[in-house]
């Protein structure tokens, strides 16, 4: 399968890339890892006139923590880099849980986290993770840089709020205000399939008290769903079987699953409940090395 004809540019500076997008007038697409865009172009669901390949841009393949704990992930950081990251394993339990569950090992060598956020697939795992962590996307355009909260970044299925001449150059996860814990669980029929259901939970605790919580759902609605009421039910008190059950109920209520070949709506809603409960009953913790096994903890159904 061939994509439609397109013009291809691989600029060596960000300014040049933005200029190309600007001149492209909405008919241009940014190519980073290409693991979603190239298949879409082959199926002719996307037929951009111009492809701006950003793989030659310098200084975008990084992920690093600032002194205060803010995590920054560059636009060319591959899923595999995050999967094998000691930094994530030590400080970001929800992200470390999700990284090995993105697509399959070979796709993870090319695909990028920032690209996945931009693609805005309702079944994309990273969007839920970044949403649960209260993260944001840094966009750069002709007028400069702006920060867009993840909660506003996705405007619909496969739609984000970037201007046509803006490039998402970085994802930012804010510094924790306490001890970080959480997890990501994904039900998939086989490795590399889209999520039947995915649940991201990120909490911060101070002593026994949950000081911040985020819960987000993958694959059970027209876009990634922030379960804000579930998160609120966890905040301001210690984690108890009662608070966990309440959060699981609220998360399941906000899910909008549809019956399809991956399962019935009832089943998917039930799995949201189960996953919220399961993550919170036995969360991964920042700083606990053994908590992030290399082989992942994905739920895989036959």
């Amino acid at each position, binding site marked *: 399968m061939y994509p439609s004809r397109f013009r291809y540019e691989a600029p060596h500076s960000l300014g040049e890339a933005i200029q190309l997008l600007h001149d492209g007038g909405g008919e241009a697409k940014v190519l980073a890892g290409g693991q979603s865009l190239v298949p879409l172009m082959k199926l002719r669901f996307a037929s951009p006139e111009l492809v701006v390949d950003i793989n030659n841009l310098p200084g975008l393949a990084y992920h690093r923590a600032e002194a205060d704990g803010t995590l920054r992930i560059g636009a060319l950081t591959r899923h595999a880099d995050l999967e094998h990251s000691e930094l994530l394993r030590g400080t970001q339990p929800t992200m470390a849980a999700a990284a090995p569950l993105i697509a*399959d090992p070979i796709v993870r060598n090319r695909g990028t986290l920032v690209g996945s956020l931009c693609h805005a697939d309702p079944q994309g795992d990273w969007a839920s993770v970044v949403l649960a962590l209260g993260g944001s996307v840094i966009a750069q355009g002709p007028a400069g840089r702006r920060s867009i909260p993840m909660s506003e970044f996705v405007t619909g299925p496969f739609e984000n709020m970037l201007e046509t001449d803006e490039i998402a150059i970085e994802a930012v996860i804010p510094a924790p205000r306490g001890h970080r814990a959480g997890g990501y669980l994904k039900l998939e029929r086989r490795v590399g399939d889209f999520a039947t259901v995915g649940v991201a939970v990120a909490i911060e605790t101070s002593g026994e008290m949950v000081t911040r919580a985020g819960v987000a759902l993958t694959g059970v609605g027209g876009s990634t769903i922030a379960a804000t009421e579930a998160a609120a039910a966890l905040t301001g008190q210690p984690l108890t079987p009662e608070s966990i059950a309440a959060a699981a109920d609220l998360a399941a209520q906000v899910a909008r699953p549809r019956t399809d070949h991956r399962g019935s709506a009832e089943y998917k809603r039930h799995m949201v409940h189960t996953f919220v409960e399961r993550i919170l009953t036995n969360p991964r913790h920042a700083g606990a090395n053994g908590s992030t096994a290399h*082989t*992942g903890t994905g739920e895989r159904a036959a």
Partner: protein
Amino acid sequence: MTLVYDDRGDEAADVFPVRRIKFTINGQKKIAEVEPRLLLSHLIRQGVGLTGTHMGCDTTNCGACTVLVDGRAVKSCTMLAVQVDGRQIETVEGLAGASELHPLQEGFREEHGLQCGFCTPGMMMAAKALLAANPDPTEEEVRWGLSGNLCRCTGYQNIVKSVLWAAEKLRAQAGE
């Protein structure tokens, strides 16, 4: 290598220019002129003429088209040929030496790691990258590392054994 494109006139050539790229494949330097929409898998098979890289699903699922680009395993149906400008490609044809099979190929023979053989080139290339990163993997790590490659014949048991066999031989060779 030769790839032939439709001549749509000079105007079209200005809008969608063919691009000249240089790359290395299995140690051999190549120059190609490609349409940007040409996939890496097509460059390898129809351009260079190395048909060991198989096209299975053409939808990023099966991994039969797996090759190494600068040492990293990629699905060559999901990368544009223009993107390998200046890069090193390894395909299954690059595994064997002049007179000797690569330990991975030996392993697949010894442990009966293939039946129809269609997925085998992709399996071997994914395994090569896996063993380069982790020379002494557990069975679980091999299974996990090959989870982007589908096989419809073997049930995977013998593929995993083959890769473990190769890992052992490669470690023995490295220790010599």
